[in-house]
């Protein structure tokens, strides 16, 4: 299976997970997962609740260390990396959190400015980039508001602006559209596509939402029982007869055999 998921040639793969296993106590979450994210593509990871999508994403940025297997980003092994290597990898990486995770005592502007300041830019340059990023997400007029004063969708957009502020090569999105109305979902999807087209960033998107997955994805990976059960283009995904994929597509809450229901 691993060969099917890994495109030929190594230089066009930005993120590679090989044989990644992760368990919490008794519970095996990832079980020898193989996945290769091609450079410059948006890959959506789909799967039922609790199958380890967030865990996979956290392994990619070194927030979690797998029990077995390797994770490499741009040729640098992330699991067990030195602090210095991890810093270098993370300086080319943006992360959009499900709850936005904006620092709640800093204004929207200051939140977007954080990663820029950390990279040692001058105040003038920081201001310029922050203005530009907030403008791109359509929020140039709320820069001085605090996260508590913004709606969920606005917070997500500020979170996106912060994640792409430094022009990262890789942006990780954890359920960017969950809990948002269709209009806002569409806006966020457009941003994810812009992340690829405008900034040339590779995107890994964890999502439950088939419609938005089909809009943003170059490839869709289906996570099932700790592995990537399918790695398909959107067209192949729609045509697939994998039972879990059908249950996503039919929006029919079919039983997946484990007693859980598809979202």
């Amino acid at each position, binding site marked *: 299976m691993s060969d099917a998921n890994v495109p030929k040639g190594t230089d066009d793969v930005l993120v590679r997970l090989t044989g990644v296993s992760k368990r919490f106590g008794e519970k095996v979450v990832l079980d020898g997962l193989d996945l290769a994210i091609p450079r410059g593509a948006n890959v959506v990871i789909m799967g039922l609740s609790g199958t380890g999508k967030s865990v996979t994403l956290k392994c990619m*940025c070194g*927030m979690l260390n797998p029990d077995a297997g390797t994770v490499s980003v741009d040729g640098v092994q992330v699991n067990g990396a030195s602090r210095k290597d991890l*810093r270098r990898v*993370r*300086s080319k*990486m943006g*992360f959009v*959190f*499900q*709850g936005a*995770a*904006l*620092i*709640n005592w800093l204004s929207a502007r200051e939140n977007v400015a*954080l*990663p820029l300041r*950390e990279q040692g830019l001058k105040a003038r340059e920081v201001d310029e980039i922050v203005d530009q990023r907030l403008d791109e997400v359509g929020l140039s007029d709320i820069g001085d508001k605090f996260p508590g004063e913004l709606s969920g969708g606005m917070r997500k957009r500020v979170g996106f602006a*912060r994640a792409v502020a430094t022009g990262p090569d890789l942006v990780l999105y954890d359920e960017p559209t969950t809990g948002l109305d269709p209009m806002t979902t569409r806006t966020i999807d457009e941003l994810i596509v812009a992340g690829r087209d405008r900034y040339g960033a590779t995107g890994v998107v964890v999502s439950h939402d088939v419609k938005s997955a089909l809009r943003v994805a170059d490839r869709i990976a289906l996570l099932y029982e700790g592995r990537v059960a399918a790695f398909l283009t959107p067209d192949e995904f729609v045509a697939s007869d994998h039972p879990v994929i059908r249950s996503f597509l039919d929006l029919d809450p079919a039983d997946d055999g484990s007693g859980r229901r598809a979202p």
Partner: protein
Amino acid sequence: MRAFFSALGSFCSGLGSGCEHAGHTALLLADSIVRGFVPRQPLRALRRFIDQLYSQLVKSLLVVIIVGAFMGMILALQTGEELRNYGAEEQLAAIVAASMAREMGPFITAIILAATVGAAIAAELGTMRVSEEIDALELMNIDPVTFLVSPRILALGVSAVLLTVLVNVIGVLGGGVVAQAQFGIPLADFLEGARASLSEPVIFGSLSKDLYSGLVKSLVFGLMIGALACASGLRAHGGALGVGRAVRQSVVASVVITLIVGYLITWVFWVLLR
């Protein structure tokens, strides 16, 4: 029997995680002090420190003033009644001043800081932890210790010392008012007596041992309370419930440890270094 062993087991595992927590707290404290004195970006570090110091003082000032005044008044009333039986009221000022400076000032300040500033820090960092803000900082290569922990702990050390000085002054004033009202000792005489008793024996320049030992104590208390609050907050997990747990843990640990360490420091200053 089984209940006993399961209770014993949970006590031991509680002890184990307590030790782990203590180790984590100590590391955090050491890390914060080192980074506080050798900051990578001194100007920004100073700014964060001053912001913290200011907000900590604002949070606790009023309570400290009220409690300090009443502490001095109670001390003067209780001790004064006793001294009157021996006709030794002229000792009152010295006793009130020494009790405030050596023990009551640092102790009261520490308890108030644990309940106000310490609880606030644990809640703030705990909320940041459970809403993934700490993770977000780490992914932006911003070190949470430099950014959040170090300024809070160091500012709490300084706050504790400053507030202890204030508590001592207010306590002595409160005691003086009671001395005049209840025992007919003129306020001026009382203050002069307090000043005289606190001006020797002198060590370290112009500080007497009474003052000096009390201020060292409050510095240690402040740093410890800060470290406990930050460590509890950073280790919070499990949503809002977890934040509540972190706050309670931080306040309880701070109060208990303040008493134990307070005893040890008193022993060092007044028994070991006698």
